């Protein structure tokens, strides 16, 4: 089953993209984007895994224990922060779009259609 994490990541990525394309509500579009981004977490953590490796926290295990790759885990941390900020910015835009157009349906954002 060594391909399973990557299959999950590809599935999340495409399912999230489908959500963005098919969505009729801006909030759902934004949530779909976070699903796309969560695919990158799965890829990164899947890439950095070593069979039988412990978490790279050596507080209560000997320093020579085989551990998984900490570098990708830090990248995931960065990824999470970026996702949170991007989501917040987009939600702020959605708030203003709702004020301006009275609707969260992307089809109702009339200025965009001209």
């Amino acid at each position, binding site marked *: 089953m060594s*391909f399973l994490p990557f299959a999950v990541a590809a599935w999340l990525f495409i399912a999230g993209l489908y959500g963005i394309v098919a969505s009729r509500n801006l909030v759902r579009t934004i949530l779909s984007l976070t699903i796309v981004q969560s695919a990158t977490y799965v890829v990164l953590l899947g890439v950095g895994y070593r*069979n039988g490796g412990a*978490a790279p926290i050596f507080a209560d295990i000997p320093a020579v224990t085989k551990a998984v790759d900490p*570098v*990708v885990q830090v990248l995931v941390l960065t990824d999470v*922060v970026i996702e949170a900020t991007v989501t917040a910015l987009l939600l702020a835009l959605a708030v203003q779009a709702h004020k301006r157009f009275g609707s969260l349906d992307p089809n109702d954002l009339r200025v965009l259609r001209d």
Partner: protein
Amino acid sequence: MSRCVRLSVFALAATVLAAVLIVGFAGLPAFGHFHGVDGNVIDGVGVTERHATDLVTALNFDFRGFDTLGEEFILFGSVLGIVLILRELRDEHQGPRLEEADEHMLGGASEALRLLGLILVPVLLAIGGYIVVHGQITPGGGFQGGIVLATAPLSLFLAGRYLRTRFVAPHTMLEVGEAVGAAGYAMVGIAGLVFVGIFLKNFLPFGIPGHLLSAGQIDVASLAVGVEVSGAFLVAWSEFLDQAIMVRRRRAQ
């Protein structure tokens, strides 16, 4: 573009993308057999070189501390963006409705929820502070603990005390906290430049691994990031809550 056309274009594109993803993933090392050199080196020398037992935090605030500086300013910049987007527009004014002037009652908030919200405040502050300062020993650090710290005033909102939250933690204070945190991390870097000649190089004693005051600058940097993250998220959240509760469209003149 009609919905039908859009979905069929997507189906075509998704098929191609899926094929590319399969080819790409096939080229990765098999799951569980990754031999990244950097990770191996860090796993090997992280504890002895930096006296930090949580290597993720050690990487974040020391080995690749420069990236974290950028990451922190992305957070800072995006919160600025939120403040800018959600600013008071010309036809709006701030102020609670009369019936809410005393307290904002969250729709359906029971007495139990309100009590729990108040009880949670000190607990969340304690957990958040603990996670921030123990980042170099156990999982945690500034980013994770900062979020927990930020949820403490948010639970006041759950308790239906939003206006009082504004009083306890006014916008100016939050913004100053965020800025101080962001600047603090940069100052840690500059201190490295001043004391040992290299930006973000450790300039503090390493201490004993596993002790609270260990791993040199990591703890200080983590604290600065914790302040910045909690400030940033509180600014963002209060902007959103203001939109829901405080901002009203000015009546047509």
